[in-house]
């Protein structure tokens, strides 16, 4: 009776009391079920237990995602240091380099833009070059889309923005044949991969930027950026059409160097893509 009076006097405590009631009830029912489980037929998981297990599942999947990525993270950290050093050595101030690392978060686009920025190329060309170099992410996103289409759009935006090559490479072989797409495990596995990549990349980039200001320019460490781009291309050069495409792009890029504003880049991309598609058709015909 006094309990009810208290309830009426303090309506704002209702929520707290209700919560307490639920907790006490669960406590007792759990004890009861443990002592005589045979009598109690209702064995559905309790709300807080269920929440806990979901959280445990998420954490577990996240940890797996980060763990599967370990070799990739090693490569990523080398790449991050090189990019950091290259940004400073090619003439960006440290502030600008930090801003670029934090906002752009795309090593190849950053390294690609450096010679263009140094040459004072027009902004639209830097934008187009950044788009083209990042085009591979369109293919990644198209492949990843079925796994994330049941998420809300802000989450999809974030998951997309944080996507990196290594995370994609680890994720796809693991889940391509999954019977159900868009599960909790898949989402949190991917999140674990991309969050660990983000942290490793940013830390190593900042380290590179700090190192870059100490290393003398005469060491020409900006060449390490070119080497890093070559290192990135090498595993992708896997068949003849790609070789034909690269060779064509290279010749066009070499011949068009006297063009102003590094516009030869556009010509090289168009020629390279066309040559690759042409070669693909020719080689396929030859084989059949």
């Amino acid at each position: 009776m006094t309990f009810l009076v208290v309830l009426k006097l303090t309506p704002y405590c209702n929520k707290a009391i209700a919560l307490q009631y639920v907790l006490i009830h669960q406590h007792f029912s759990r004890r009861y079920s443990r002592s005589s489980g045979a009598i109690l037929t209702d064995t559905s998981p309790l709300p807080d237990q269920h929440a806990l297990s979901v959280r445990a599942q998420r954490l577990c999947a996240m940890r797996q995602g980060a763990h599967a990525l370990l070799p990739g993270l090693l490569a990523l950290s080398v790449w991050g240091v090189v990019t950091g050093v290259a940004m400073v050595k090619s003439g960006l101030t440290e502030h600008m380099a930090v801003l670029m690392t934090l906002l752009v978060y795309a090593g190849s686009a950053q390294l690609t833009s450096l010679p263009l920025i140094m040459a004072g190329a027009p902004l639209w060309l830097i934008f187009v070059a950044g788009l083209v170099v990042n085009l591979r992410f369109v293919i990644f996103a198209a492949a990843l889309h079925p796994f994330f289409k049941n998420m809300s759009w802000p989450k999809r935006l974030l998951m997309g923005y944080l996507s990196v090559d290594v995370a994609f490479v680890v994720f796809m072989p693991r889940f391509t044949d999954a019977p159900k797409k868009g599960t909790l495990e898949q989402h949190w596995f991917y999140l674990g991969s991309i969050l660990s990549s983000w942290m490793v990349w940013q830390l190593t980039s900042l380290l590179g930027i700090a190192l870059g200001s100490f290393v003398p320019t005469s060491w020409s460490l900006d060449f390490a950026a070119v080497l890093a781009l070559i290192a990135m291309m090498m595993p992708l050069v896997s068949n003849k059409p790609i070789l034909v495409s690269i060779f064509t792009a290279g010749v066009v890029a070499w011949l068009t160097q006297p063009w102003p504003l590094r516009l030869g880049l556009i010509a090289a991309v168009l020629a390279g893509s066309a040559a690759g598609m042409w070669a693909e058709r020719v080689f396929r015909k030859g084989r059949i």
Partner: protein
Amino acid sequence: MISDDWYVIAAILLLALCSVITRSTYMLFGHLMPLPDRVRSALRYAPLAALTAIIVPEILPWHAQHGPMLDLKLVAAVVSIWVYQRTRSALLLIISGMLALWLMRWVVTLFG
């Protein structure tokens, strides 16, 4: 060093926009636009062509007056690619390329 800060900031913002567009657009609107096979195969070649077009002028530069010329960086790049073919290691590619460049420059200063 670059004096034109706003130019660099604008470039950085545009590149950030590139990241969002290429990575997130398909995640957001993928159900509205299936990717045709022809486009897909073109997309496979364009990024490598662009990377090539960035690398080539760095290792095979044209001089403003003298036209095309050989650079030690080209030799260093060839050495690094050879090392990669042997070891399949991106890290060794970068290290060997840098070492080759430094070594050749040192030799050139010895004889020059």
